[in-house]
């Protein structure tokens, strides 16, 4: 099984909402264990497990003092921040990056830092009041209630609090009688009626959990779209979209293309010419950034009416082939922050899958140059752009840099994200039956990094010609 994230958006590039599961139940009823078992059964990566514990309200000094005396009621519905919880789930559902608060049980307050969560195909939210708030309930696609006998819950709670949390038996029992049991009877148990499925006996009920898991798997499969194949079936219009910016076809550019496309070109030459070409594409991309007027004084004491860059920029490489443009980027913007995205094609379905994503923290304040060596069907590009959009970067601040592009892929991107600009050094004719770009340049990453058995040329015929 591949660990990549399958597309979470449709062919228009719009996100498909993740499946949200709510799991409620009494304290120590086994909600977390059930959640983990479901995740294991589903076998899909990119599942986010969200705990209600993260959404405790910070306590006042008086409440903190009471908490230390075991006199604060943590089991009351009012102890939770439903507004923040709702907003967080709503954003996860929209597919955008969220900051989940971290609640510290020692100081009984929220920490300054948060946990960044991005990219969920399935969200499992568990907690005693998971089904309590209507707004929150309305975001759920499936609601479960774990119904474990009260004595089992109490036994587990005693064991956990005494063995793992170092509490004494009388304190635990006092809290149980005073808060936990009444909260369950008055507030938690009544939410059972909102559940779609009730799981008696919790984790021990493997039959029920398996049935639920299988149902979920089917639902997820129904939602998954076979993007790449769908795209490949499109008829391509002859007119290239306006958001495509192709380098001016000068003889030098053509000669560079001749060198990198030639199968007999040695790796040594391939790298050299690929980098020259990359640098041209990078420079063209940078020219798309906004500029401001500026008057400067020259050493001759005269004024020059110039320009300056108006916005910050960063780049994001689509690993592996896109990372070959990093040298070109650093050569022109010395300290450019560079994010990385790893997208692999699943060999069985031909679909792109997101495996890794690490982006500059302030990416939403920057223009973003996404780099990849080629755009074939546009499936990987669509995924890369979707990731950047999900990190709050406006569409018109994204510039996609590529060495070659096929018309199909360019149309796919323009159709989904018309404000994204694409810079290509040449546009190729078409894709062959295996969806490879032709005439193309073969596997760019393999040729650049030297990871192919296929021996391309070894002659440096192009190098130093006439120099």
């Amino acid at each position: 099984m591949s660990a990549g994230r399958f597309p979470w958006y449709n062919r228009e590039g719009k996100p498909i909402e993740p499946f949200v599961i709510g799991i409620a139940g009494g304290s120590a009823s086994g909600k977390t264990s059930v959640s983990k078992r479901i995740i294991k059964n589903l076998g899909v990566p990119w599942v986010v497990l969200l705990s209600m514990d993260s959404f405790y309200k910070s306590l006042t000094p008086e409440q903190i003092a009471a908490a230390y005396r075991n006199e604060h009621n943590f089991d009351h519905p009012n102890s939770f921040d439903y507004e923040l919880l709702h907003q967080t789930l709503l954003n996860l559902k929209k597919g955008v990056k969220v900051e989940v608060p971290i609640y510290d049980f020692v100081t009984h307050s929220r920490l300054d830092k948060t946990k960044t969560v991005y990219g969920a195909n399935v969200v499992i939210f568990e907690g005693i009041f998971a089904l309590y708030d209507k707004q929150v309930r309305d975001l759920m696609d499936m609601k479960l209630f774990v119904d474990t006998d009260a004595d089992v819950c109490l036994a587990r709670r005693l064991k956990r609090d005494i063995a793992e949390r170092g509490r004494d038996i009388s304190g635990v029992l006092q809290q149980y009688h005073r808060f936990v049991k009444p909260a369950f009877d008055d507030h938690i148990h009544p939410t059972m009626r909102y559940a779609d499925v009730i799981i008696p006996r919790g984790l021990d009920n493997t039959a029920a959990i398996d049935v639920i898991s299988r149902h979920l798997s089917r639902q997820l499969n129904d939602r998954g779209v076979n993007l790449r194949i769908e795209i490949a079936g499109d008829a391509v219009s002859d007119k290239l979209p306006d958001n495509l910016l192709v380098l001016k076809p000068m003889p030098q550019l053509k000669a560079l293309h001749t060198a990198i496309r030639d199968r007999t070109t040695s790796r040594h030459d391939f790298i050299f010419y690929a980098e020259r070409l990359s640098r041209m594409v990078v420079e063209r991309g940078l020219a798309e950034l906004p500029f401001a007027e500026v008057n400067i004084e020259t050493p001759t004491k005269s004024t020059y009416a110039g320009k300056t860059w108006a916005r910050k920029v960063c780049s994001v490489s689509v690993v592996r082939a896109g990372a070959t443009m990093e040298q070109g980027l650093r050569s022109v913007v010395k300290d450019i922050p560079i994010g990385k995205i790893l997208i692999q094609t699943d060999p069985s379905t031909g679909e792109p899958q997101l495996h890794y994503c690490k982006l500059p923290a302030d990416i939403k304040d920057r223009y973003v140059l996404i780099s990849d060596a080629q755009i074939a069907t546009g499936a990987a590009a669509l995924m890369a752009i979707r990731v950047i959009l999900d990190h709050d970067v406006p569409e018109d601040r994204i510039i996609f840099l590529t060495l070659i592009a096929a018309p199909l892929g360019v149309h796919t991107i323009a159709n989904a994200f018309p404000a994204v600009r694409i810079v290509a050094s040449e546009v190729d004719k078409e894709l062959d039956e295996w969806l490879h770009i032709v005439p193309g340049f073969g596997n760019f990453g393999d040729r650049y990094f030297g990871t192919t058995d296929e021996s391309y040329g070894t002659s440096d015929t192009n190098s130093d010609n006439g120099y």
Partner: protein
Amino acid sequence: MSTFTPPKQVVVLESTPELKSLMSIIRNKDTARGDFIFYSDRIIRFLVEEALNHLPFVSKTIETPTGFKYEGLAFQGKICGVSIMRAGEAMEQGLRDCCRSVRIGKILIQRDEETALPQLYYAKLPPDIGQRFVLLLDPMLATGGSANKAIEVLLSHGVEEDKILFVNLISAPEGITKMVEAYPKVKIICGEIDQGLDENKYIVPGIGDFGCRYFGTLDDA
């Protein structure tokens, strides 16, 4: 900025906001040397890439690893660089970045104190320079005195006039006019054309002394 209409021998880089931004950095009197070098090098790279477009190419059809034909081009003929010392040497790396192990000749021309005419002090050129295209490198074209002297030296070494490309960052109209009158077949590749020259024959608005700023030999540096 300049109302001067350059003659057909001159190729000026497209005046994009980006080029203007780079020029704004290197023209600024307060720019630190590290940045001056970095951004000059970026403009030089543009100039070299543009200059290489004006060399002859022949059609070349190649086969790609996907087994398809690609109708391409290949560079034809031999080239070399010749830098006019000292400032022209700042452009050598840009040329080498595009043309690995390119041969580079050097010419030193100084102004004669008595006659005020440019005088050749030193020339070391590739022996077969007569068979090559020559990229003549000098960042500033002011009066055109030393550049014309350099062209004269190249011609005396057998270089054909129409095989000389003069590559520079900033030109004054006076220099262009003088060069085109004397050597009409020389092609000039230029970053920007400025207003003209001041009483000290410096280009305005200009850049100051390019060589001193690039190599760090200004008194107030």
